[in-house]
């Protein structure tokens, strides 16, 4: 996801027809009062004290007082330090990384650190890059929290020191803090827990003193993942594990084509299935409510539904490809134009052209979509792992008639997401709320999708068609580069449409329009075809296809010019030192250009996404029967200060695996509007035997940290394709390219 600018809350409010009386300011006022109260109570009631970030304070004399006291760090008498995590952890490791930031500034001992997910409350827990929205995506969790949590940790540390100074009657300047102990030269020492109550009575500093990065003792070390023990033993709780008194299971029969509606419904046989309690028709399909999931699925099979597809999307993939190709021949919205590309191509002595086809892709996280809803008279309580809790609150508010702040969300671990759990219309959360609202059972509802619901249920990485032309002049210089993209917009028609500033959705062109290579005449155009298939950000979003297309085409151009792919890239990256830095590092560590064994080769790609820079060198072997193996990937990443290096490495490994999976075998296709795939027998995720050996190198940096959840994904496809290209002598332009090369 790419939300970087501030978003307009009015936009969401209008889109979802939220009661205009409920605005952010009102919420903030009332909760400021409760926050100040909370601090006082918290400090005196024997549970320790709590501090929040001070980045939004302005100054200490601000009449509203410390705006966010108490909401990010809690220090208890039992010496535990709890960090409140405002982001969803769907595997990317923010529970470890964000906790480490606080521990560092606090000089805590890692063993005393705890964490918990924040409630849904954008007045306190908004993503600082997204304005008034709480949410996780676009690889922003660490980047937006960095200063917020450093300040919180540093403030808490200063309050502990001040409390110790008073208790011991010594100057604060003589006190040191190390590994969770507050110490004085005289030999006096105290734990955080010993000082917690006294520290809670101290004035929180308006501008806490932060460490110089050279003083970091935890950041940059290989801290263990804080969630490893519970996730290794089956104790970790996900949405599917929520149990509420009287809870009933629900499954939904979705329409077989996108946009179809129920024409007629016969639920008599479903209701006869033992355990089935109720059948509910909703705007999103027909729900079966039962004692348990198994009974609900049996009931769903017994439903008789006639669907009306007169307003549904009924085109097939073949038709869409024809229409996309026809569109590509027309001028599109111009996302970038440097120099005069038409002139450069006209005067070129050599031109290179390629076209690329990318299919729809399913996210297919291991935990199919699910949500538990408990609807009460004045409150709706939700358990789910969602990336956009603020949007969910507004959507559920609309469904239930409650106010958004009456929608309480208990965030759970998500069993993967890759963008799937960041839905602008909250599809699965909305669905659960609709069932709870329409059901006469008054029971808590546990909506669980099956894998088939997930694969067929939409929200795909959009199909994309790319067409390239490059011009080379008589002195063998690359003078012109033209890229045409045809792909559905993700942002249009959502509350986030206001982010689009140019003629085309930048999500379509990102990675293409931001091409870093110095080419004097460069133009990127795009069309946004209207298709009734719901699309969504899929790990690295537009970069998924743009990085592949640009980096494979770049190698084609380099080949036409007789240049080495690494050398040629570096020659055009003089203004982009961080791209060049990772490219050099990956090439050096992979021993780029060394003599390879027979039928083996190296391929390279470099790409920036979400302000992080990644280069990957893939090594492949092509067998005589046309099969091939990706043996090894050497990856270099520059994501600024590496807070938890091992988590960063894990994200690069996982990002590479996810990208490779799409490259090798993933594809969603349509036949008369119906999705042809349904489960892991026809939608093929990467398995262990296909996983290459991976080596990750992190560039040492003092820049502010940037995201790592997505940037590992874009370069792997083109790196592998570029390696295979050398062996097969043909560029690979249709994805996925499967496990056998046609030679």
């Amino acid at each position, binding site marked *: 996801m790419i939300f970087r600018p501030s978003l307009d809350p009015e936009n969401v409010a209008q889109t979802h027809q939220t009661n205009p009386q409920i605005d952010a300011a009102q919420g903030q006022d009332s909760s400021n009062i409760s926050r100040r109260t909370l601090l006082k109570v918290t400090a005196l009631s024997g549970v320790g004290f709590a501090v929040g970030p001070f980045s939004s304070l302005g100054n200490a004399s601000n009449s509203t007082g410390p705006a966010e006291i108490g909401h990010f760090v809690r220090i208890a008498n039992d010496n535990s330090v709890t960090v409140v995590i405002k982001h969803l952890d769907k595997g990317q490791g923010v529970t470890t990384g964000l906790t480490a930031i606080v521990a560092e500034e606090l000089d805590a001992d890692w063993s005393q650190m705890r964490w918990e997910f924040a409630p849904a409350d954008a007045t306190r827990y908004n993503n600082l890059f997204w304005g008034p929205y709480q949410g996780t995506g676009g690889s922003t969790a660490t980047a937006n929290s960095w200063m917020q949590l450093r300040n919180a940790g540093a403030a808490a540390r200063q309050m502990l020191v001040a409390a110790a100074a008073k208790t011991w009657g010594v100057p604060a300047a003589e006190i040191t803090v190390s590994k969770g102990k507050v110490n004085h030269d005289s030999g006096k020492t105290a734990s955080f827990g010993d000082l917690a109550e006294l520290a809670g009575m101290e004035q929180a500093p308006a501008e806490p003193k932060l460490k110089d990065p050279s003083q970091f003792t935890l950041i940059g070390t290989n801290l263990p993942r804080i969630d490893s023990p519970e996730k290794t033993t089956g104790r970790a709780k996900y949405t599917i594990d929520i149990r509420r008194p009287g809870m009933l299971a629900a499954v939904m029969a979705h329409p077989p084509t996108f946009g179809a509606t129920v024409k007629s419904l016969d639920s008599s046989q479903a209701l006869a299935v033992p355990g089935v309690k109720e059948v509910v028709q909703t705007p999103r399909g027909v729900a079966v409510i039962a004692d348990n999931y198994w009974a609900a699925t049996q009931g769903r099979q017994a439903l008789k539904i006639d669907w009306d597809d007169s307003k549904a999307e009924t085109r097939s993939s073949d038709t869409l490809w024809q229409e996309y190709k026809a569109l590509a021949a027309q001028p599109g919205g111009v996302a970038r134009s440097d120099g005069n590309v038409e002139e450069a191509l006209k005067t070129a002595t050599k031109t290179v052209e390629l076209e690329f086809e990318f299919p729809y892709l399913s996210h297919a996280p291991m*935990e199919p979509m699910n949500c538990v809803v408990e609807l009460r008279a004045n409150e709706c309580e939700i358990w789910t792992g969602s990336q956009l809790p603020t949007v969910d609150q507004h959507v559920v508010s609309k469904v239930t008639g409650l106010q958004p702040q009456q929608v309480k969300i208990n965030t759970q671990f998500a069993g993967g997401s890759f963008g799937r759990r960041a839905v602008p219309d909250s599809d699965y959360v909305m669905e659960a709320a609709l069932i709870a609202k329409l059901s006469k059972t008054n029971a808590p509802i546990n909506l669980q999708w099956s894998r088939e619901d997930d694969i067929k249920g939409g929200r795909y990485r959009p199909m994309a068609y790319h067409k390239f032309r490059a011009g080379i002049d008589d002195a063998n210089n690359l003078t012109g580069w033209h890229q045409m993209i045809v792909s559905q917009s993700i942002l249009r028609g959502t509350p986030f449409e206001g982010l689009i500033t140019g003629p085309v959705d930048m999500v379509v062109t990102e990675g293409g329009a931001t091409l870093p290579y110095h080419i004097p005449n460069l133009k990127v155009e795009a069309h946004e075809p209207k298709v009734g298939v719901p699309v969504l950000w899929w790990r690295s979003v537009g970069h998924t296809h743009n990085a592949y297309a640009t980096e494979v085409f770049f190698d084609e151009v380099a080949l036409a010019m007789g240049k080495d792919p690494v050398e040629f890239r570096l020659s055009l990256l003089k203004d982009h030192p961080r791209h060049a830095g990772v490219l050099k590092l990956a090439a050096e560590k992979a021993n780029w250009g060394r003599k390879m064994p027979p039928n083996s080769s190296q391929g390279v790609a470099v790409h920036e996404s979400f302000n992080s820079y990644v280069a990957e060198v893939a090594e492949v072997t092509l067998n005589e029967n046309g099969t091939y193996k990706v043996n090894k990937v050497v990856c270099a990443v520059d994501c600024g200060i590496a807070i938890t290096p091992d988590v960063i490495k894990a994200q690069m490994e996982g990002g590479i695996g996810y990208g490779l999976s799409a490259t090798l075998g993933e594809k969603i296709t349509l036949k008369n509007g119906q999705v042809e795939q349904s489960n892991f027998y026809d939608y093929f995720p990467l398995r262990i035997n296909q996983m290459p050996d991976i080596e990750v190198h992190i560039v040492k940096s003092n820049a502010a940290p940037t995201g790592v959840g997505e940037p590992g994904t874009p370069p792997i496809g083109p790196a592998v394709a570029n390696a295979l290209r050398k062996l097969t002598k043909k560029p690979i332009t249709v994805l996925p390219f499967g496990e056998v090369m046609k030679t």
Partner: protein
Amino acid sequence: MIEFTLNGKKVSWKGDPNMPLLWFVRDQQNLTGTKFGCGVALCGACTMHLNGSPIRSCSTPMSVLAGMSVTSIEGLDSAPAKAIQDAWQALDVVQCGYCQSGQVMSAVALLSQNPKPSDSDIDAAMQGNVCRCATYHRIRAAIHQAADSLAKEA
């Protein structure tokens, strides 16, 4: 009525004999460590042990279980299990963690039957377990590490 042993305890079921074991364990016994991923025995998230061998509980009907012994992740208690879970934590294998109960169950079964698996043994035993976070690289390393630690203890 179907009677069998789950994690060393006698359990029984009078309901639908076609119901998969997974839902009995999760919904009736409220042991939620085992996860639902695909429902058709293709992802391994639901892996349990049946008389010591790995099975996909999402596709194992209750009707076949009479007199058998089932172990879910909650019931793991063996030297290979400890070695696997220790290695998993030492190498921080997990990411989202959702598939990891199944991965651990498959790995424990592998190590119980083959104390020194090769890479291709690991591929064969673990190919049925999908991890969308692609933690495969570390799963392989952790199985080797667990095998080494077991060998040292022996």
